[in-house]
């Protein structure tokens, strides 16, 4: 029961989605399953928050190294959560001023909004911004033109880096462009493609599309086969070790 029921649930849910794709009459079944899936996704956010709470509390109670940081995380979490769930400082919906809870939780000026604006925004965007430093360091240390393959990779990166800025246009401005020519010949097209901005487009449209399309086809087949294995119960790894 502990293992058979989940297998059945997964198969039924999955095949309902597949059947709904082909038979219009069953389309609403697919919608219902999708809506339930969306609700569970939202509940998973709560699970995530609960899990964070559990892990941090454990860290603090065990006085593990760095427990003070866990306390900071916990305080930030609890304050933000309280402000958001209780809609602290939020005014009611304009059309329903008598209903105190009818306003939105992230209204401008509320503590929840303040924490988003002055904590989440700077922290998240700066954490992502740091990658610029590491990509520069990696380029200096790791990109070596050791063989044909590496030269192709580096060459393309150069063309893209130059071609997608004003430098590309400036450097190859002397090459005649085919844009203004009426009915250009093959050679005119070819020469015009040597302009860095056009070369970028050419590489992206043809070579990059070809490479990524092949990767896409491969991933699609892989995804389809893994999905089918799960739905047919061949792959049961998602059920865990089965010790309990």
């Amino acid at each position: 029961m502990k293992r058979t029921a989940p297998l059945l649930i997964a198969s039924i849910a999955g095949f309902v989605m597949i059947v709904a794709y082909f038979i219009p009459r069953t389309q609403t079944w697919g919608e219902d399953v999708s809506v339930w899936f969306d609700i569970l996704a939202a509940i998973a956010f709560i699970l995530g928050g609960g899990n964070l709470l559990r892990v941090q509390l454990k860290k603090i109670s065990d006085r593990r190294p760095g427990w003070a940081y866990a306390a900071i995380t916990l305080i930030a979490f609890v304050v933000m959560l309280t402000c958001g769930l209780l809609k602290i400082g939020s005014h009611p919906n304009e059309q329903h001023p008598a209903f105190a809870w009818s306003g939105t939780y992230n209204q401008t000026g509320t503590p929840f909004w303040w924490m988003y604006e002055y904590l989440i925004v700077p922290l998240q965007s700066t954490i992502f911004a740091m990658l610029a430093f590491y990509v520069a360091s990696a380029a200096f240390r790791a990109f070596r033109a050791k063989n044909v393959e590496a030269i192709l990779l580096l060459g393309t990166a150069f063309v893209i880096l130059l071609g997608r800025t004003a430098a590309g246009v400036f450097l190859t401005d002397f090459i005649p462009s085919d844009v203004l020519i009426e009915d250009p010949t093959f050679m005119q097209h070819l020469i015009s493609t040597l302009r860095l901005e056009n070369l970028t487009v050419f590489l992206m449209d043809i070579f990059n599309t070809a490479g990524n399309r092949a990767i896409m086809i491969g991933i699609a087949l892989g995804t389809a086969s893994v999905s089918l294995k799960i739905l047919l119960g061949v792959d049961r790894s998602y059920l865990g070790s089965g010790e309990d």
Partner: protein
Amino acid sequence: MFELFRNIDRRWIFLMMFLCVAVPIFVIGKYKTTFPEKPLVLATNVFNEIDNLPDGSRVLLAFDYDPGSEGELGPMATAFTRHCIEKHHKMYFIALWPLGRQMIDNAVNRIIKADFPELRYGEDYVNLGFKAGNEGVIKVIVTDLRKLYTTDSRGTATDEIPMMQGIENIQQMDLVINVSAGYPGTKEWVQYAVTPFPDRIRLVAGCTGVQAPLLYPYIPQQLPGLLAAIKGASEYESLVMAKYGGENISGKYLEAQRRMGPQLVAHLLMIFLIIAGNVIYFVERRRGVRQ
């Protein structure tokens, strides 16, 4: 000199990168000039898709990004919103990312409320807000929008919103515009909305640099226009401003074009670093062979 560069502390490289970005920002910010922009075909396609729609068309704007990618995608969202306003399109905002909800609020506050206060909520634009479920949300709203969106983000019943009258699903939108930072994003819109309904749903997108190359196989059949990274944003922004900007363009509508300055200098630094790294590599290899 060679030895110094070979053993250089990576923090010096970080400092170089910082300066290459900071100095152009300072100079451009002071003098308020930008590089001339030459829009290429994909950005022009995006512009035309929106511009060629009859005035007052229904446009779904899906803002699937967060502050982590606002540097690249914020200017696109601004330009998309401005373009739709100029065309008097009816804007339906939604988000598949939790923080996307804030991105919609940003667009509404910074552009609509600040510069176009005459636009009325519920008649000219509506914020349907965020729903959890990633592609599961797209899967539902392509056939039944109200199954998930019973209210808008403010808690007003969907049926009471004038511009929602008669909208059953997003197949009734004249165009879907997606600003995408990853999963879920443009790929999912192509997979779950455009591909099953190729004649009814048309999509254009703006995406991060990381995603852009991966989306090229969808062009043009499944995705007629794509703004790739900040350069795409800059090209599109220049097109919108050239047609609708007027004489004095506010700095907030030139954000992407301004950012092409630090972009240029930092790209040149990257090329320099790769060349320098390779010079060191080849010199070392030659020395190794000699020894």
